[in-house]
């Protein structure tokens, strides 16, 4: 167990002991990997872990836990999604305690049927802009471990999105794993309008992915949860990164960096010129 993990556990134990939170959302060991877990008793805080396997963005769970006082373990990108959720009135900052863990990048998950057991840093972590959550009640530092990021690359090589989308199963796990896809009536999944039906593959794969991409533009914090959940390894974060770049160039806005800075679409007023 690392010192960071020890510190995380003691913070969680204290928060639950003093009843400052009702539930801690964190990670626990599961087989050779880790998985999300919910801890509600101080004596269970010992099962919390923090390492490079923790790719899932726990902010995804906040929408289902409204009304509870939640402690949440957050990487840099997870924290950025919490910022966006606060700005979009989906999360009440007063009801959550953020335990920010300093992140040096997560590994691409070693999933069923992977052709190599060799582990490497997830591609999206190479484009990371914040190792620590911008909102934090506690900060757990790493033990001076070397950064996993060797060379931050932008990955400007063109991808053949057409053939990548063709692999899509329309399982929608990208949507379900996303902390910012909280619409109760999803325009892609819903029946009114019936934009994308699961049975009309492949014509609607493009409608699906491009609709989702536009919905993520200027909002996606590039945590990579969608990409890591995808069973056919479509590099979705790359697509959203390119749209984010466009958004930044045109509106000077980077999502999830500060709670104060309002997202341009939210402050847009009809008939008002700059």
């Amino acid at each position: 167990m690392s010192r960071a993990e020890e510190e995380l556990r003691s913070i969680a134990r204290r928060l639950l002991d003093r009843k400052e939170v009702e539930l801690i959302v964190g990670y626990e060991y599961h087989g050779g990997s880790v998985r999300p877990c919910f801890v509600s008793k101080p004596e269970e805080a010992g099962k919390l872990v923090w390492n490079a396997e923790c790719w899932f963005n726990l902010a995804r769970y906040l929408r289902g836990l409204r009304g509870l006082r939640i402690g949440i373990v957050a990487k840099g990108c997870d924290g950025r999604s919490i910022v966006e959720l606060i700005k979009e009135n989906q999360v009440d900052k007063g009801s959550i305690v953020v335990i920010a863990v300093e992140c040096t990048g997560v590994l691409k998950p070693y999933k069923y049927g992977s052709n190599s057991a060799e582990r490497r840093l997830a591609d999206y972590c190479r484009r990371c802009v914040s190792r620590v959550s911008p909102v934090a009640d506690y900060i757990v530092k790493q033990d001076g471990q070397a950064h996993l990021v060797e060379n931050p690359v932008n990955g400007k090589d063109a991808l053949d999105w057409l053939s990548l989308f063709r692999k899509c199963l329309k399982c929608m796990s990208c949507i379900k794993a996303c902390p910012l896809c909280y619409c109760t009536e999803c325009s892609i999944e819903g029946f009114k309008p019936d934009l994308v039906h699961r049975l009309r593959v492949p014509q609607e794969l493009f409608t699906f992915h491009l609709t989702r991409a536009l919905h993520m533009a200027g909002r996606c914090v590039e945590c990579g949860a969608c990409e890591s959940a995808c069973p056919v390894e479509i590099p979705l974060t790359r697509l959203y990164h390119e749209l984010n770049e466009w958004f930044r160039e045109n509106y000077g806005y980077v999502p999830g960096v500060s709670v104060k800075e309002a997202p341009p679409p939210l402050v847009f007023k009809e008939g008002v010129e700059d």
Partner: protein
Amino acid sequence: MLFLSEDGFKRLLNGLVSSRNVIAPVEANGYFDFKTIKHAGEAFLDYSNTRLPPKRFFLPQREIVFKHDPKTGVLHEPALGSEAVLLGVRPCDASALSVLDNILLKPPNPDPLYESRRRSITVISLSCAKPREECFCNVFETGPVRGSGEDITLTRITGGLLVEVRSGRGQILIDGFASLFEEAGAQHLEEYEELSRRLTKEMSSRIEIARERLVRLEETLDEKFFQNEAQKCVECSLCSFACPVCYCFDTEDYLEKNVYVRAKGWDTCASPVFTRMASGLDPRPSKVDRFCHRFCHKLSRIPMAFNAYGCVGCGRCVSLCPAGVDIREVLKRWG
């Protein structure tokens, strides 16, 4: 039991590829997947298992059930399955096909599309050499060597492969290449038995299951346990999409260039709209209901109705679930 030397196997592969449509595991974008191969070298047979099961060759993600032209009144029936050899299916996935046979081929309502594909595709399974951490086929006795539902079982042993013919369709294929095979010797069979024992021992899951207890899963449901587990579930439905057994489907009618089309394709019980009826009534309105349903269906209702478990222990849902929901934990509690 027959023996096929390494060299004989190469010749068999070449022979199959040059004469038939062969689907085999290949390496693609970081994971293994089944694909039609053009030459024998493309097949990658040193694989753990494919990320997605070979289910789609029998139950495609989307298929046309019929088309109807209202102007001419002509009803177009779908094309039936075309001949192919599906090579390198792991025993668990092959066993999943026999579960599906139990469900989809039985009267009174056999699925003609599934039936035609099942009849035209010869399945050759390849026993596992090294189980993954998530694998638990030993629990349902669907592996790691020799499943059920395949036409030919291949098992790698020293110097070649042990070949077991499992069906008439398998025999026809073997007869076409009879010169390559020889009778297996006693030492081959001994090695096979030893391999089977060793691999089963290596499997990390030690779960004892009893059918009598599992079929009562629904009555004895521990709601607290399921509520806790369901809290983690993000309803992404990857578990059923990656499952070699999940067969639930949806149909949709639509108009395409003035022709009515009825399409059929995968659906998933994890989706909130799966059981929602036109009236708005939903018998499984909450996430916990849907979550329980998945396990009850696989471990209790399918065994009661079709005398086979709805799970073969391939471990895909365990590995691919972003939330780490683990069917083995359900089995441990109720097995």
